[in-house]
């Protein structure tokens, strides 16, 4: 974080990211209108995960932050996923 704020994300990059995000949104909509069964929610979540990765990395400048912060952010997501999975151990085996 020593180079705090010195990094400037170019407009061009931001605009590109927006385009990708929009594309992903339409991808999600079209995917969910097919009937892939249980897969749809997985695909939808994967796409959403990818989108949030982009937002975090570029819009929120995480890509240019210190390694420590990046690790912390990923830990939070991992923690949440683990908690959900553990709760599912209860509910999916009832």
């Amino acid at each position, binding site marked *: 974080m020593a180079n705090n704020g010195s990094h400037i994300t170019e407009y061009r990059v931001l605009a590109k990211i927006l385009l990708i995000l929009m594309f992903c949104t339409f991808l999600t909509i079209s995917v969910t209108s097919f009937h892939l069964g249980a897969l749809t929610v997985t695909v939808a979540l994967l796409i959403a995960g990818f989108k949030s990765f982009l937002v975090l990395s570029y*819009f929120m400048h995480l890509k240019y932050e210190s390694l420590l912060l990046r690790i912390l952010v990923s830990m939070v997501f991992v923690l949440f996923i683990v908690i959900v999975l553990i709760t599912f151990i209860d509910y999916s085996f009832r």
Partner: protein
Amino acid sequence: MSEHNTHIEEHRDDEASKLGMWLFIFTELLLFGGLFLVYSIFRLQYPANFHESSLELSVTIGVINTIALLFSSMTIAFAVTAVQKKNNKLALRMIGITLLMALVFLVNKYFEWGHKFEHGLYPGSDLMQLLERGHHLYFSLYFFMTGLHALHIIVGMILLIIVYFKVKNGSIHHEKYVFMENGALYWHLVDLIWIFLFPLLYLIS
């Protein structure tokens, strides 16, 4: 020295404020995390009901709102870049657009909710009590999650309005913009949550 002041003069530590903001975002993520957990458990138990209920929502409104938020997320990032590049005028315009998008989102939400209310579908209504379990849970979650999210939008807007005036009067500028960065981070958080809310509430099959 500090005769007039009970405390050492506030020293400025941008990194500290930014780290603080990130930590705050963590708590917000887990706050919604609890709701997502509830959602996923109930969806696991009532998949069919959730699907049927989601058909009641208008995907079009959802898409418009998604686009509005994604776009606003980009404009606020633009605004930060603009301030870094000493282009305060552009920054102001970008913040303005962001706020406009936020307003679009809220107005949309207002009509969406209003529509449901007209049909007698709101928390605690008689109709809600009559619904099947899965439907009842879906709509409870729908109102709770989108409501909390809308609340965050409003808080975000207030933050951005403050940012707007600070940029305008020059207290945010290319060497001192951590407050703006934090405001923008908060706004992106709002967007981040919507990225998950949208497919989970509107697109269930």
